[in-house]
């Protein structure tokens, strides 16, 4: 690769991991396919299943963006802690809120 030669001679330069082009295009293809899939899935009556299907497709697309476009897959462990910590706190926010709302027998849920 022409890329590695440009960083030689600088031992303290950032660790440059250059993702091959095909990975970027493959991720783009998967994201576009996911967009079409989520549209098609919304036109089919799956009862209560429509919402989980839409959420799983969106979460998969988001994961692809984070791992490959945002280079999380090559990031340090400390960065991983922050990324996963974000979603941990988001989970706490949702779980505790719905632990309240969904158990209000007198409410409209």
């Amino acid at each position, binding site marked *: 690769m022409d890329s590695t030669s440009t960083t030689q001679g600088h031992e303290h330069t950032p660790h*440059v991991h250059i993702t091959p082009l095909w990975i970027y295009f493959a991720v783009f293809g998967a994201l576009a396919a996911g967009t079409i899939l989520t549209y098609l899935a*919304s036109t*089919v009556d799956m009862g209560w299943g429509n919402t989980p299907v839409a959420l799983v497709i969106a979460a998969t697309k988001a994961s692809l963006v984070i791992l490959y*476009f*945002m280079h999380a897959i090559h*990031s340090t462990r400390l*960065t991983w802690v922050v990324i996963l*910590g974000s979603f941990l706190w988001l989970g706490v926010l949702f779980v505790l809120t719905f632990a309240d709302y969904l158990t209000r027998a007198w409410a409209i849920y």
Partner: protein
Amino acid sequence: MSDVTMSGQTPVPAVEEHHPHHPFLQHHFEDLGQQHEASTLGMWTFLTTEILFFGGIMLAYWVYRLAYPDAWSVGASLQNTRLGGINTIVLIMSSLTMALAVREAQLGRRIGIVTMLFLTLIFGGIFLGIKSYEYHAHWQEGLFPGTAWHWNENPDLAPKIQLFMTFYWGMTALHALHMVIGAGLLLWFMWRAWKDQFGPEYYGPVEVMGLYWHFVDIVWIFLYPFLYLIHGHKH
């Protein structure tokens, strides 16, 4: 060239001519590698606050969606699903070109960085243009909450559909605001790239700008099914 010897060799300088400090290395960092890692970590910490910011609004959205499922599916059926889908693809394309801009920076290709950032800006502009068209249509249809509201096809559900549309305008406008800020950053970074400020040793700022842009893309990946694609009522 007086110090060139008879044999044509230049004398070896006493001190090695090597930049002791890269011009973009801040003095409080050991080296460019540490600086790069700190900036990536810092950006992710900011994105944590953004995830919880949008997450809090999405939480409120879900509390009311579970309370008023009929109003939410009628509300989603009032959206232009095709334009929303096209916009999703446009935004994914902008994310691809943003990722390629980072790659061009890693490879030290100045014109490549400027070109990819420019394409990202163009796709971002197309997205905002289509969004403006949708906003205009909704305004004409009387789907703006408050005194401008005059959509009345379903009087029973109308107050709850106003609530859905409040989420629609609020979430998409907040997303669009992030894109406008991103467009400003793109212009600034195009200028910096043009001035040859990025390269294999110093591509961190382009990477960090990319993290922001991709995050905004992820928000839309959720907003599209949340606001446009709720199965159920077709009014």
